[in-house]
């Protein structure tokens, strides 16, 4: 009978020990960069596209590029709850990301910071969703932005000539760049 008592105590002890490990989260909570709208500017700081609380400004020209060509630099700015323009976060945790609807029509060339180039691949229409990436996750995103890729031009006739030596240029349909702390801020009012 003593053996049974010993066995019983041993079993209970084992069961108790089995639940001894700690249980806590392995990731920290993250604060969000909250915006109410987006505004995209051309290299000359002409407004190309603007959306505020889901409503796009239809009077603006929108995003266009010719097939075979790269657009000029497009600046990204944000709008807060008062529709006041604010810059993107200037830290290592946030970066620009995007999804292209049809990667056969459009590509994105990223130069770091809060700006990018459109690269037309084939004539047609597609969509672009821009995101504020925070680690692996989007803190903010645009609605689907229509992008028109016009007819193909010869490379030497493209309005903007791609700088092939730019080491920061990268591309992809789903951008996963982290630590994009390149500041491409331009003075403008």
């Amino acid at each position: 009978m003593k053996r049974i008592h010993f066995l019983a105590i041993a079993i209970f002890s084992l069961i108790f020990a089995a639940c001894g490990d700690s249980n806590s989260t392995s990731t920290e909570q993250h604060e969000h960069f909250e915006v109410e709208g987006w505004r995209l500017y051309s290299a000359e700081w002409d407004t190309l596209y603007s959306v505020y609380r889901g409503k796009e400004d239809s009077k603006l020209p929108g995003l266009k590029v010719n097939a075979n060509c790269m657009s000029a630099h497009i600046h990204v700015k944000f709008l807060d709850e008062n529709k006041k323009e604010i810059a993107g976060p200037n830290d290592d945790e946030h970066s620009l990301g995007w999804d292209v609807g049809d990667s056969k029509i459009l590509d994105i060339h990223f130069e770091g910071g809060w700006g990018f180039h459109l690269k037309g691949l084939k004539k047609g229409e597609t969509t672009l969703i821009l995101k504020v990436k925070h680690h692996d996750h989007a803190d903010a995103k645009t609605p689907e932005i229509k992008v028109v890729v016009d007819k193909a031009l010869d490379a030497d006739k493209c309005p903007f000539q791609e700088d092939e030596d730019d080491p920061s240029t990268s591309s992809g349909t789903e951008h996963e760049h982290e630590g994009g702390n390149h500041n491409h801020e331009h003075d403008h009012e």
Partner: protein
Amino acid sequence: MSMKAEITITSTIMNSTLIRAAMGSLLLGGFLHSFAQEFIQDLGYSTVVAEQSSETILDGLREDEVLKAQKLDRKISTTIAETIKNEPDIAIRSMGPAAARPVIKGLSGSHVTLTEDGSFCGDMSATSPDHAVASEVLTAHKLRIVRGPQILSHSFATAGGVIQVEHNDIPFEIAQPQGAPTQSAAVSNIQIHGYITDYAESGQPGFATVVGVNGNIHGLSLKGELSARNMGDMQTPNGTLKNTEIKNKSIAVGAAYSFERFHLGASFRTFNSNYGIPGGFIGGHPNGVDIELSKRDLTLRGLYLPAQKSSDTLSVTFRLNQYHHTEYETKEYVGAEFAVNQENVRIEKFIAQSGPFFGIHFGGEFDIRSVEMGGYVFTPPTNSYTASLFSVASLNGWRDGLEITLSARLGGAFFRPQESIVADKDAIEDRNFALWAIAAEFSQRVAPGKFLTLNVFRTTRAPTIEELYNQGPHLAAYTYERGNHKLDAESGYGAELEFRDYGEIINWRAAVHSTWFLNYLAPRATGDTNWSQILPIYQVSGDDALLMGASASVETVAETGFYAQAGASYVCGFYQNENWSDMPQIPPFKFHGEIAYLWTHVRTGINTEFALAQNRLDRYEERTPGYATFGASLEFHWSLTLANYSIILRGDNLFNADVRNHLSRLKSVMPEKGRNVSILAKAEF
């Protein structure tokens, strides 16, 4: 019931039920069956004489409705919610097949408490539609929907209910398979009982299996059980709903031992689940979300049986629960993470009879819970503490055939949120809630085999930490959720009137219920959008509301030959405002019926289920169309060489109907499971 009560009924079929009613309380996981009170039954005259009953007749009748043995096997499905979906007043809140949770009388979330082996089921399924119930349905030996005043033994929310899952992890009693010849070993000091169950289906192609062994060696009882489930994406009439796979594993071990008048037991159960939440549609995550959860429960239980009256037990149960939940947006990236540590002590005294009262149980429950969050969860880490005292007692003798059950639960809930970068500092506020709920049930036998029951109650519940403090997007649920740290506790007053008739050919019951809620807490679509994430904003608010409903069920009593069964449930809810607008997430009218033929070892039947369209909608809710489905089943049950075997073949939704569940977040994207053929094979020895 007095020391000696005589109950005369007209149906011999009632005998087994009333015998059960006359037996001891079932409140301690069936352990008290061994203290069955003396009873005499006269089958010829359908008379039961019960002595010292510790349970009302009504509770005994309710025990007949518990899903167990063949009745449970017949309904086994992917989840607990799917398995009990055709019980009266039950609906399913879901977001894919894994994240399905029962809804009772139109009430979900923390209105519905789940327990495993009598103690809390530690998971986060009540807090969000994408969170699964952390319990493998195939390992359940019984599923009981607790109704009436007994709810207050476990919860303040009497308007909702409690769903008890019994795994019998602490093997106080080693069950013998019914009908199996007694093993010769049973008369020695060693007993072994084992079971293996396999389940497979085509609607979500895959399988589930459970293997378990119970043994008793010189008074030391042991249990070991393994289960696994591996099911693929759900097949719907419109194609495959991707990212809906489920992979579950569970391990349970338990031991029980007796020292004279003390019985001690312990168990340890782990449950791991990987499941998907679909995506790729407007409002959803592009690739869906993969969720990994793990749960570990350590349970210690002690029973003391007084020498002078061994039925009057004192039990102490301690459960230590660790729950971890991670939501992955991609394979590497964590979208949300939760770590919950919870300890619960439950002390309960049972007294079979004292003065005019019988079936008395009272006790206390104390609970400490800490919740940590990681990733993109916008609720601050919070510790919460709850303490409550409860009591349930029955009496009779005032009027012939009248039994009264009274119950009460008093306590408090205390929330201590911690500072967090994700929370508004003004919202980090300690909150304390005093809670009380009472219920009184009057059950009158109005004629032989006929019972009229009125249950009146006050219901309450404290807000959850998410309802108080959450402030941000919930990507898996595709919502932006706003809590309110100023919320008061929910409360309400209600009543349920039920009639039961146990006849020679059929048994039937019908019930109507109504609850007037003061400050009904629910997340409601505001119509606003969080423009940063482009997610609809849900705000938790407390509103006065009226919830009403009815249910009815009927079944034939024959144990062989023709059998028919049908049931229907309806509920509607209104907010008190100028228009008495409809409450959200209220299930529509639903009917199910079955016709079967029963031989000794074979059962075959056809069944149907239909729901009407839900046109009663809250703001920004979408109408859900009705549906009708048809199914068939074929069962074989037999005993051979010291073992029982069952094979159950089932075909559900045979005509591949487009079924939309009004309480599913995916209803506008894809229908529910289409044509589904399943098989369950079980052996017990």
